[in-house]
């Protein structure tokens, strides 16, 4: 996956061992195989079906309830695989939100392709193939941005996330990462420049 979000994906610095916040500690305990931690993680991840339903509704509801429910397992499997990459920079729910969005948008793409192939609407409530309501276009745009962030170098992506998603100042980010604010600013600028190239080249980084 491109695995994600405002908080997730490959670009996360692999630091699930981070225990700066309680969620980092929780994930650390799960990775250490503590059964009580797994119970707490289950409780926290019970939000996944609700996030998927809400994200689908916000995208204009292109999938039916059954199709959304079908995504729960894939999303949890993706979250589980990527658990060691959880940096603890955001809450677990925020991190998981990106996985939900990614799985949902992939499912919507498949749904639309299948609808286009069959050449007819399944029922009166099914949207026409490739008709993109504003909400859906916006969700695709958001997912494209997240996917581009995931393609950045891990240290650049982390700075970008801390700046825009955790809303930290450059000085705070520097303190968190043990670097000078000037180094953080340079990383941030590089990250923006790389994002510009990636987004300008349809997902493939343009070397210009």
């Amino acid at each position, binding site marked *: 996956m491109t695995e994600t979000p405002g908080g997730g994906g490959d670009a996360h610095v692999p630091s699930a*061992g981070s225990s700066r916040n309680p969620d980092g500690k929780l994930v650390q305990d799960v990775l250490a195989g503590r059964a009580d931690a797994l119970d707490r993680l289950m409780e926290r991840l019970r939000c996944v079906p*609700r996030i998927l339903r*809400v994200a689908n509704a916000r995208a204009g509801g292109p999938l039916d309830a059954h199709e959304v429910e079908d995504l729960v397992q894939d999303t*949890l499997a993706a979250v589980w695989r990527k658990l060691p990459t959880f940096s603890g920079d955001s809450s677990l729910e925020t991190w998981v*939100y990106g996985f939900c969005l990614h799985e949902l948008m992939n499912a919507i793409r498949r749904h639309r392709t299948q609808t286009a192939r069959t050449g007819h609407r399944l029922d009166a409530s099914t949207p026409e193939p490739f008709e993109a309501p504003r909400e859906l276009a916006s969700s695709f745009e958001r997912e494209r941005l997240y996917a581009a962030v995931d393609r950045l170098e891990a240290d650049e992506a982390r700075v970008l996330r801390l700046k825009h998603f955790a809303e930290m100042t450059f000085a705070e980010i520097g303190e968190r990462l043990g670097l000078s604010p000037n180094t953080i600013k340079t990383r941030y*600028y590089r990250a923006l420049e790389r994002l510009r190239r990636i987004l300008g080249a349809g997902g493939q980084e343009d070397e210009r």
Partner: protein
Amino acid sequence: MTADRHASHEPILERALTGELASSDPALRDLLATCEECRMRYEKMCGIAESLDAARAEEREAMAAVAHEPEAPGDAPRVDEILRALARDAAPRAPERASPRRPKVAVPLVALAIAAALVLAVRVFWNGGSSPIADPGVTLGAAIPCDSPRGIVDDYGTFAWRYSLPDGGWFEVEVFDEAAPSAGRVARSPRLDSPAWTPSEAERKAFPRAIRWEVVARDSSQRVLARGVAHASRSR
């Protein structure tokens, strides 16, 4: 414009985009007025920064809506069941760390691990290059024997496996790029009621040279009954 001159513009752009220079700063205004390329880059990067802020706002709104979304009766048991199965079958791996002191028992364990790896390598070789054991990734329920494609093949052709479905059950196949395991699936079959799937020629051509494919069997209520995993690569 020479490359040197253009390079001298970078510090101004960096300072502007990190908030050290105001948009009304004369140095920035001069640069944007005289260098078309820098002006376009600056505007694009400002737009990206705004999009990131908008994404954050959208995320907050969505999470607020989630907080008000009622939990459906089946949500908790389903999540718990899936996570228990994941935990049982495939523990996520924490990043490895160097241990300052190794216990003495490490040497026999390493020897055992090497022996196990050799046995596994022989079994993989014997099975035409595909792993005879369950994929170390996510495997829920029982294993499905995957017949083809496996190992090195001319074309991926028809995907076939062996499993008897209960009434109302169905299969689904997912194909992944073996060379890019984190890139997500490259194809997914429709729901299948028999143990075979032939992707279209266009789909097969789009498959990468080496694939990992997974088949999952579900019952009529979507519960996973079994999974199978196999690896294959095209000879040309």
